[in-house]
């Protein structure tokens, strides 16, 4: 039985401040986090706190760091199909239609052609785009393109889905709707999700725990348990209290 827990052990990351320079910029300092299987983790922080860098490390796009990232007890090695991602910009291939774009994720999957086709269709239905299966990215709205990206991130049935400010570029109405959908998808798929966002409201609405990060160097300020029943109600007084609590962290920083 896989348990698919994700462990971040003493993660530190430095960049040379300029290429070739010996001056180092500490981007992440000793990040420790244990993430249970199926947990929804929200990471919030001001820009420059290293939250997106942390996500890139977990994804395996950047392999130069100190510390260990363990998935299911084993250190990760580069990118892997068991870790999906939804970027802030949808990053769909403009020359492929919706169906083909989702299928990109299955290029190196062991499934048969028929299984691939079926699971692609299933995930397009999951994000409600079955009527746009043949549309090209430029023919659909930003919100729809981001749903396609979510379907592409999920279609491999990863054990961890990383969300790098996936709703950050959308208008408020679309964002609120997709937050609701994201929560439903998470409840249905029962996978671990790690959401990086600068929107405190979004972090509290979606997270089982909210990790607050602070910059210079990027580190965890504190971790809050969001012990509210789902689906959550934004006008619930407990929701408001938790949100204000997180917001107060940012007030102190400025």
């Amino acid at each position, binding site marked *: 039985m896989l348990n698919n827990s994700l462990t971040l052990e003493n993660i530190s990351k430095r960049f040379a401040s300029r290429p070739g320079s010996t001056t180092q910029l500490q981007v992440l300092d000793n990040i420790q986090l244990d993430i249970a299987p199926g947990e929804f983790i929200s990471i919030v922080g001001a820009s420059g706190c290293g939250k997106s860098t942390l996500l890139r490390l977990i*994804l395996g*796009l950047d392999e130069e760091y100190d510390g260990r990232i363990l998935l299911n007890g084993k250190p990760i090695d580069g*990118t*892997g*199909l068991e870790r*999906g*991602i939804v*970027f802030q*910009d949808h*990053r769909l*291939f*403009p*020359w492929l239609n919706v169906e083909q774009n989702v299928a*990109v*994720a299955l*290029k*190196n999957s062991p499934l048969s052609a028929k299984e691939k086709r079926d699971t692609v269709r299933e995930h397009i239905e999951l994000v409600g785009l079955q009527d746009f299966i043949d549309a*090209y*990215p*430029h*023919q659909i709205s930003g919100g729809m393109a981001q749903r396609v990206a979510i379907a592409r991130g999920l279609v491999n049935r990863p054990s961890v889905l990383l969300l790098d400010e996936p709703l950050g570029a959308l208008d408020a109405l679309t964002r609120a709707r997709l937050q609701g959908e994201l929560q439903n998808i998470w409840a249905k798929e029962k996978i671990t999700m790690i959401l990086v966002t600068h929107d405190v409201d979004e972090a509290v609405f979606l997270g089982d725990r909210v990790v607050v990060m602070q910059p210079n160097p990027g580190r965890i300020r504190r971790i809050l348990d969001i012990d509210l029943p789902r689906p959550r109600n934004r006008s619930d007084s407990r929701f408001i209290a938790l949100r204000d609590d997180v917001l107060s962290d940012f007030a102190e920083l400025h």
Partner: protein
Amino acid sequence: MSSALAISHGSSRRYRGWVLPISAVALWWLASHMGWSQSGLLVSPEKVAATAWDQIASGKFWRAISASLARNLSGFFIGTTLGLVLGCLLGLSHYFERLVGPSFNTFKQISLFAWIPLISVWFGLGDVAKVVFLSLAALVPVVVNTCDGLRNVPPNLLEVARVYRFSRWQTIVGVMLPAALPSIFTGLYLALVYSWLATIGAEYLLVSGEGIGNTLIDGSEHFMMDLVLFGMVVIGLVGWSLNALARIFERRMQRLYGIDPR
């Protein structure tokens, strides 16, 4: 009434491009018929039309144009094929780029016409020499644009390929080439335009055999301005058609890539 007006308004926009050439021909007709010039070198539009008819009916025109187009297309295909190979190697391999890049960059600075003396000595004045010259004309824009297109693939899309564990080959075929396609197409488009310009240049400078450029030379040597003008009109029309053909492909490509055609 109003609908008729609307139609005539729409079509007047559409045909606006004809105003200048028709006025020019009208002025030309006036000039030749009012005796504004006594020179025998100013021929009338009717004379040119008669020569055109004679050229077409006698089959001389078809021989010339087919010789020119055959040359143009062979040069275009050889040049673009080599250009695509070289452009892909330069764009995909850092090793090859370090090895060949500086030489190619020097090579492309040499004016196309500076090759003529060398080509005429090596390959003579016949078809081989002309096709070599045309291939060179087509090669350079294809190499430059193919290489640029492959170099400028958005890094964001390359990261997607890494996330889904694409092999090097899958990344080239599935991401880099499609992303570079609009740029590669620009290269092909330029090659088509340049190779037609170079066809006439080659026929003019490497004088031997048939072709529309040779029609021009004949006309000019015998002071037959009607023949010269006929040749120029043909060259213009062929160039325009090749351009239009390339534009149709370009529009299709842009639609596929979601770039709004103007």
